[in-house]
């Protein structure tokens, strides 16, 4: 219905952009600002900020969250009694194993996967680097039984172990008994409660805090360079698939292994080669290393490589620094403490 009108508005908008481009020689950031200031709140202008703040409250049942927290860090879930979820997702270390690209996922010739943080998983559309799982429940179920990860054995073996220790706590938390469904639900409820609100950027969005000049410029650059195309939404990513290396070959000069094939491993479609789930940039400053293989050790390194292989830009150093400054404002709080506090 309004499609024709939209197209007309677009013609107008892009013509304006072109005109501005011809009239002067602004920096990309300036251009973006110019464009924003010139365009009114029309249908063409983006009516919503591409990033939304994380809500400060989760409606989760605190009894279930407490039970899920205990289970999350209890190694009895693993087959050999030595591994818990918290072994790889250390909550005091931003929900990852600090500084390591370590994963007990099926290994291949090129090394382990980088462990994604467990914080804010509630806002992700899919889970794992390849987006294999559509729900946290499916994800947890698969990882518990995966011999390479938790190796919990069968449900018949796992449930009695849990029942012996937690029967009473399950009932106290309002579950009828210990079962596959309730065990999964308790842990997933806890996972969903792991949100990190009150990042400085969120406070800025809520007009509670003023960001520095550099940080704001970083945000503008983040948008104008095009990072925002994938890293958008409440989780600044996590809801779209993208090929690693749109403009350039991301694996140039490196051995490409199974791990690097991405979604292709799942779908077998040639178009899914090197396609990964775009990770969330929430708490990105404290969740190094970066990329599926942990190959970027620093934020700046990651920004530079992303701009090059995804966007075809060679970003100058100050621009990278500005974007990094913006990304640092995405570090939120968990239970009132800044995420990854211990590491800083």
């Amino acid at each position, binding site marked *: 219905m309004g*499609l024709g009108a*939209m*197209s007309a508005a*677009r*013609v107008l908008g*892009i*013509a304006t*952009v*072109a005109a501005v*481009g*011809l009239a002067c*020689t*602004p920096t*990309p950031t300036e*251009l*973006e600002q110019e464009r924003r200031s010139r365009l009114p709140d029309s*249908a*063409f202008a*983006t*009516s*919503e900020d*591409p*990033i*939304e703040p994380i809500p400060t409250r989760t409606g989760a049942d605190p009894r279930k969250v407490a039970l899920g927290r205990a289970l999350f860090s209890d190694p009895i879930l693993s087959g050999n009694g030595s591994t818990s979820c918290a072994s790889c997702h250390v909550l005091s270390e931003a929900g990852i194993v600090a500084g390591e690209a370590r994963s007990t996922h099926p290994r291949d010739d090129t090394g382990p996967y980088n462990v994604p943080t467990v914080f804010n998983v509630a*806002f992700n*559309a899919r889970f794992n680097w390849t987006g294999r799982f*559509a729900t946290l429940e499916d994800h947890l179920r698969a990882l518990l039984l995966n011999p390479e990860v938790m190796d919990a054995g069968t449900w018949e073996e796992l449930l009695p172990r849990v029942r012996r220790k937690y029967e009473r706590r399950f009932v106290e938390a309002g579950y009828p008994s210990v079962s596959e469904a309730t065990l999964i639900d308790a842990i997933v409820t806890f996972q969903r409660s792991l949100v990190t609100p009150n990042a400085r950027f969120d406070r800025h969005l809520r007009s509670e805090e003023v960001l520095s000049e550099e940080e704001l410029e970083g945000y503008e650059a983040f*948008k*104008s*360079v*095009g*990072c*925002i*195309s*994938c890293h*958008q*939404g*409440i*989780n600044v990513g996590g*809801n*779209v*698939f*993208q*090929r690693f290396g*749109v*403009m350039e070959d991301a694996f140039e000069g490196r051995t490409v292994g199974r791990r690097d094939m991405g979604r292709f491993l799942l779908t077998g479609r040639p*178009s899914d080669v090197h*396609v990964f789930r*775009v990770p969330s940039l929430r708490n990105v400053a404290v969740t190094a290393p970066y990329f599926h293989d942990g190959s970027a050790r620093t934020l700046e390194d990651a920004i530079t490589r992303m701009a090059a292989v*995804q*966007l*075809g*830009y060679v970003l100058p150093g100050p621009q990278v620094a500005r974007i990094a400054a913006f990304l640092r404002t995405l570090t939120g709080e968990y239970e009132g403490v800044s995420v990854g506090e211990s590491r800083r």
Partner: protein
Amino acid sequence: MTTLRSLRLAWIAVVLALIAATGFAWLRQPDDDEHASYSRHLQSAQALDTRLNEEVAKSRLGIVNHYDRLVAVWDDIAALERELGDTPSLVDATGRAEMAPRLAAYRAALRHKETLVESFKTEQAVLRSSVRAFPLAVARARDATRDDPAAAPFREALTQLEHDVMLTLVAPSRLDAERARCALVGLDSPERPMLPATLSACARGTVAGLDARRDLVAPVLVHAAVVVERQPRVERLVSSIVTQPVRARASAVLESYTASYERASASSRIAWLLVYGLVIAALAAGAADIIARLTGSKRALEDAHTRLSNALAELRVERDREMELAALKSRFVAMTSHEFRTPLSVILSSAELLEAYGDRWPREKQLGHLRRMQDSAKGMSRMLDGVLLIGRAEAGMLELTPRPVELHPLCDELVEQARLLVGSERRLDYVNTAPEEPVWLDEKLLRHVLTNLLSNAFKYSPDDAPVTFVVGHKDDAATFDIKDRGIGIPDEDRDRLFEAFHRCANAGSVPGTGLGLAIVKSALDVHGGAISVQSEIGRGTHFHVEVPYRQVDA
């Protein structure tokens, strides 16, 4: 009784059928909540598909610049898809068979759409980046050569490219696309072909100083290529997404589901109708049973009442007879005490006198006493005969044995007998007009009747009063009229005149047993005859008797 039992059985059968039918109907009753939620899901599936398309369009047009809402809609669709897997129990096997392929088709369309949407998001992200980056890259290249007059053609080419690329973006007509591609090819370097081979046919222009500006041109080319290549791809994806027949497939599922539901509720309606019918039948049968029972018990009550009444009546009759018998006995005793004692005492005293004085008495006196003894014994014998006759009559033992009888000799003999009995001095007027030929009568019974009537006529009239005896005939009956001029019969005794041992109040000291007229009546009753009486106290009595001839069939 059997009707009642079969009614009862029918009633029980109907009630059992009712219970069975209710259970059946209950089972067949579609779960309304389940139905409501399932059909709501199916309708939401269609609505959500529209919302998804809307979100895709918004995202494509840049109205929404993140994918969270698209993801949220998709999550809803996925949740709904899981819900739709649970086919409601009301769907029968046919419905399931019909729905299964449609559901599968719906799922397949969803899977395809999911892939398309993911591709759209991916491609759209790249396209958006380049759409943002491209004018910036162009601006940067232009800016860098602003002060170089020799670079004017380069800048011109840049402007042309920007114009064409932007045009493809907003109005992806085939012509614009070709022009943009050609412009692009004009700027492209031979060592890094970024465009499809199909475009190599386009004319290659050369731009002065291009090599020197490689670093400036490269991003322009890269983004231009992205826009030109991906723009139509994204449009195709959007078009494919929007035209994915998810809504139609969901609608098809809803259609066959609705058909199933209609079937289920129709059969449920029939089942309930059956139940209602059976309820009515059960009520009717129950009512009929109750009515039949009431009627039955009323009839039984009436029967019992009748039986009781009959028994009571019988008891009354019995009692009356008992009382009569008792009265008869007491009369008999009273009579015998008097009637038998008198002749007995006569006999006894005569016998005692004869014993004591017989040898001294003269012959005359002895004979007198002997005669008295004989008379008394004869009287007793007669009375005994009468009693026995009455007894036989009352016991129904009196039999009619008709024989040809000549009435003249019979009546003459009876008259002769009467004269002998009462003495020749008593006057008897005797007229006989009966037919000469023999008639069929029971002679013995007739003798009883006439003897008694004649004897009574003499007994209850003065010695000088004459007695008339007329024998005649009338039709098929003989008539006998016996008249006297005696004491008459009082009115109060008329009713009981023919009862045994009854004697009239004015009978006084006249000896009698009270059996005579009872014998007459009994004999006439056996013979089918009739007797009537006219009497006046002190003036006399007239008995009229009719005895029908009893012609015995040969």
